[in-house]
C-alpha cells in the first residue's frame, strides 16, 4: 500500500503522528472531523446516530396524523422545497396539515429550518407548519433581490 507523503508543517518538538498515516487513514481522519463538526452543529444528529436502528419488525413511519403517545420520527415524510415548487404555498400548507407533530418536527430537523431550535418545545402543529412554510419560502427566494442589478 502506498504511504502518504510525510507532513512538513509540524513544528520542531511537535508530535508528528499524522505524518506516518496512510492516505486512507488520513482520509478517514478528515471524514471523522467532518462528522464531528456536523454533530457539533446539530446535536440532534448525535442522538440519531446513537439511537437503535429501525428494524423491519418496527412499524414503518408514515407521519400520518394518528392519535396515540408522542414518538420520534427521524426521516422527513416530505421535501417542503419540492412541494412548494410543485404545488405552491397552499399545496404545501395542505400537505403539512395531514402530518402529525413528530413528522413536522422531523421536517424542521432534516432541512435545518430552525437552527436556533426555538421551535423545539412548540406543541401546536399550526405553529410548526407556519415556521416550515415561512422558512421554505424564504430560502427558495433567497438571492432573488440580487438577480438584476
Amino acid at each position, binding site marked *: 500500500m502506498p504511504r502518504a507523503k510525510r507532513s512538513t*508543517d509540524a*513544528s520542531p518538538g511537535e508530535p508528528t503522528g499524522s505524518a506516518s498515516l496512510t492516505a486512507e487513514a488520513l482520509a478517514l481522519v478528515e471524514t471523522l472531523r467532518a462528522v464531528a*463538526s456536523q454533530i457539533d452543529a446539530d446535536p440532534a444528529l448525535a442522538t440519531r446516530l446513537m439511537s437503535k436502528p429501525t428494524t423491519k419488525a418496527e412499524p414503518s413511519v408514515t407521519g400520518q396524523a394518528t392519535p396515540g403517545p408522542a414518538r420520534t420520527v427521524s426521516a422527513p415524510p416530505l421535501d417542503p422545497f419540492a412541494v412548494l415548487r410543485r404545488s405552491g404555498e397552499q399545496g404545501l400548507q395542505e400537505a403539512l396539515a395531514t402530518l402529525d407533530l413528530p413528522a413536522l418536527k422531523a421536517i424542521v430537523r432534516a432541512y435545518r429550518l430552525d*437552527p*436556533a431550535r426555538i421551535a423545539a418545545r412548540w406543541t401546536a402543529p399550526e405553529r410548526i407548519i407556519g415556521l416550515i412554510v415561512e422558512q421554505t419560502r424564504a430560502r427558495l427566494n433567497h438571492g*432573488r433581490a440580487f438577480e438584476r442589478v
Partner: protein
Amino acid sequence: MAYVTSIINLKGGVGKTTITLALAHFLALEHGKRVLVIDLDPQTNATVCLMPEMEWKKRDETGRTLFQLFLDQLKGTENFSAEDTIVRRVSNVGGGVDGLDLLPSSLQLIKIQERITQITDFESYRRGPIFALRDALGSLVKRYDHVLLDCPPSLGVVTLNGLAISNAYLIPVIPDTLSMLGIPPILDRVEHFAQCTRRNIRALGIVVSMMRAQTILHNEMVRRLREDFYERRFPICFESIVPESTHIAEAADVMTRVNTLQQKYGNGGPYEELSALTKEFLSHAAR
C-alpha cells in the same frame, strides 16, 4: 462622541462582515451601546445579513442606499439623505435590536466604482470624493456610541471614505499564508492616508477568524502573529479568536427566527468567543 472603526483587509473572505456583525450585535445587546453599521462593500453582505433582501431592494430602487451618495458625486446632485437612508432597529434577533441601525450598501456601486476612481487622486487625496461620507453624515454620527464600517477588500475610494471618518481600524485575518500577506500593505497605505489627510487612525489590532484549532498551520500562524510579526511592528493580535463554525455561518441568515445572541451564534464556543472579542474590542478602544 462615536468611536468609529473600519473593519478592513485587502483580501476577501477573511471574516470582515462576520466580525462587523458580531461586534455590532454584542455591543448593542450585551453592552447597551448605540451602534451604526455602515456597509461600504458593494457585495452588500452586511446589509442583507441585517435586513430582508427584498426590503433592501425597494430601498435601493428608491435611492436610499450608499449608491445614491456616490452617484451624487459623479452627477453633481444632492439627492442622498443619510437621515432617510439609515434603517433603524435592524437584525433578526427578537425581530429587531433597539439601538442597532444600518446604512445600507448597494450592488450598484460596482457600476460606478471605476468612474469614481478615475476622478480621485490617490497620492495627495486632494481630488475626488474622499470625504463624501463624512460630509453626508455630518453630526448624525454623534447619536451613536460606535460606528462600524464593513469595508470592501480594497483601498479604493469607497474604503477611503470609511477611513476618513475612522478613529481606528481592525484587521481580520484567516491564519494562513496568503491572508498574512495582506497586512503590511494595509498598514502602509492607511498610514499614508492618515498623514496626507492629517488624521490619527489607530491600528486597533488583528483579529484571527475562521480558526481551525486542530490544524498545525493555523496554530503556527497565530503564534507568529503574536510573537514574530508583533516584533516587526504589526498591531497587537487579539486574544479572542473567531472559530470556524457552522453556527457563525448560519448566523448570516436574517430570515432565521432567533430571540437571543446565544440562539443566533450557538451556545458555548462561538458565542463565548464573540462575547469575549467584543469585551476586548471595547478595552482596546478605550485606551
